[in-house]
């Protein structure tokens, strides 16, 4: 019985860590772009220069509406292609969260 074998990292931990890094990167990119773009074009402008795109002020359209759309598309790509499915396992038998298993064991014991 390999009790002293080198421990193998939980595969869910591995994939979750990888995905968390992607998510943090996405957040940083979105923050940098949106806050950066709006800082440049949304502050301290004169009303005469304002243009409208589909009725939105130009800086709102390019700085928020468009990246919002990109994020929706990316969340689909992320969730469908980058994120993996894993078996989450069962609640441990004999706890409040899995009392049926407790009952089964008691039956076996008897």
């Amino acid at each position: 019985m390999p009790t002293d074998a080198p421990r193998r990292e939980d595969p869910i931990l591995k994939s979750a860590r990888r995905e968390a890094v992607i998510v943090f990167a996405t957040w940083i990119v979105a923050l940098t772009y949106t806050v950066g773009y709006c800082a440049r074009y949304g502050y301290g402008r004169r009303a005469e220069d304002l243009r409208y795109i589909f009725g939105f002020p130009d800086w709102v359209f390019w700085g928020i509406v468009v990246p919002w759309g990109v994020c929706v598309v990316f969340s689909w790509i992320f969730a469908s292609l980058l994120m993996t499915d894993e078996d989450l396992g069962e609640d441990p038998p004999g706890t409040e969260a899995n009392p049926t298993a407790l009952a089964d064991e008691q039956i076996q014991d008897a």
Partner: protein
Amino acid sequence: MLIAAQPAWGTLTALVLFILASMWIGVLANRATRAGSFMKGFFLGNRGLGSWALALTATVQSGGTFMGYPSLVYTHGWSVVLWIAAYMVVPITGFGILGKRLAEISRRCGAITMPDLFRERFGSPGLGLLASLFILFYMSFMMVAQFKAGALVMKIAWVGSDSWSEDQKVGRYRITDGGIARLTKEGVPANVVAALDPLKDQLYATEIQFSEQVRGELAKMKPAPSPEQATAWAHRIAAVSELTDWPYITGLLVFTVSVVGYTLIGGFLAAVWTDLFQSVMMWVGVLVFLLLALRGVAMLQHEEVARGAPAVVAQMNSLEFANRRAIEKTGPDFAFSPGYDGKHEGRSFLPLSLAFSFFWIWVFAGLGSPAGIVRIMACRSTTNIRRSIYLLGVYNAFIYIPLAMISICGRALLPDLPVGKTDDVIPMLAMKVTSGLPFGEFVSGLILAAPFGAVMATVSSYLVVIASGLVRDVYQRFVRPAAASRELELLSYGVMTSIGVISVVTNLAPVDYLQAIVVFSGTGAGATFCVPMLMLVFWRRATVPGMVVAMLSGAGTMLGLYYLGAVLGWGDPLLGEATRFRPYFLLGLDPLLWSLAVSLATGVGVSLLTRTCDETMLSKYFDAEEPVSGVPANSVAAEMPA
């Protein structure tokens, strides 16, 4: 008076339908809950949440956000869209960072509540207790604020006589015949009592307003009493005036009985399913409302063209027309950041430092929200987590951007709502754009019922979290570990009913600063739990002292900065939203950023300085499970004599 003083039948019908639907959902949930043990069923829905339930209920903010956001857009203009913009990534961050591991760890340790996670993962009952105390603290704040919102909406539907503006104080002071009789009996001079006659049976919102009126009437007396004498009488008169506002109290009772009722019947699942139901209703409501609002603006546009406006107006996109109208009525700042300053007091709603801060706030307050974490723990599988990411992505995009467009149309169609009444923009606009339509009143009722549903759902989910905190994390863990299932069940019902009673009593004198309280407890929970949750989930080296310090220092930094701002009055009061319950924005940044930084630094530092956790326990959460055929190295069976 902004809204006609008669029962709004359409709204009332819609609200009653909402309540009935929620009760029915409660009964359905009750049946589904009965499958497993009471605790897991009632507080965790037997870990059976599907994609839609998870997507639309786990990270969506409280009903307060939906009520407050349109008012902010109406008041400050397009900069508010930058304020909320981080919701573009909330679906990914809310589920993509903690989701899988939370679901996994909570199964490996059999956790039913969030404190269970802390307790089991670190083998420390004390840490679990600390977490549950913090949760109870923040959730209680949130709850009390939400009850007021629910009661106000109900009251408007009931009598149509008031607005749901947050900053409005509910009318409470009234001098009645009984009060006048008591004054006479207590020896107040007859001419003073007579002077009060014009005030009889009128409602006054605050004691200050009431006393001012009383003193105004006393000043008309001949000879007028001295100011000191008038003040003394005003106090005595206020003391015998009737402190009731029956429509508000009726609203409060109806709201409380229905929400506590269905939560009690169906527990966690009832909270989640009604939340899902109202989220879908909200979505439909917002999209229908958007079409109606744009139609309203287009009609205004036609009128202007008919009155001889230049041809360019006729060709203009309706939203652009609404923008131009709104800017005419306000000023160019309405279209830009840091936002329009309606009171011309020099307020900067969203300076760049706060725009930056809010990109953190929505993400991390969502990540550390106890109600959200429990829902992730309750998901059925990773497939559901994945799906809910893009479902929520689409949902958010089609809620927040249309709501902003609606509010801009609101500024064009109802340009002159007074400051302090801007929370009425949604109900008033709904009534305006549906008037004259077939079933218009009912349609506007449905639109208005959506925020009511949002508040109900929020209260319901907090009820479950608070009850599970008291019953599971305190009673079952520390008072009577051997308590039978039936005992816990009765106790849960008792706790929920008591919370309802307490909330009614505390809301008889309603809280002010509703939105500010919601923001405080939301960001407070984020400051307390974000870093500890990340450490719990990803960091093998995290220790109990490290976790305790991370929680305490995060919460402490938050409370400290609120103390400096709200109590000591540090900082610039013209920064951000107008409220007296405001934090000190150190270097212009929101307290949450400082709290996260302090929490991270101390949590990591103390963990590295203290002894690592027990390796057997760590292995359970960080190492792959051994195949079933081999005996797991860390199982109890391995230690048993053969």
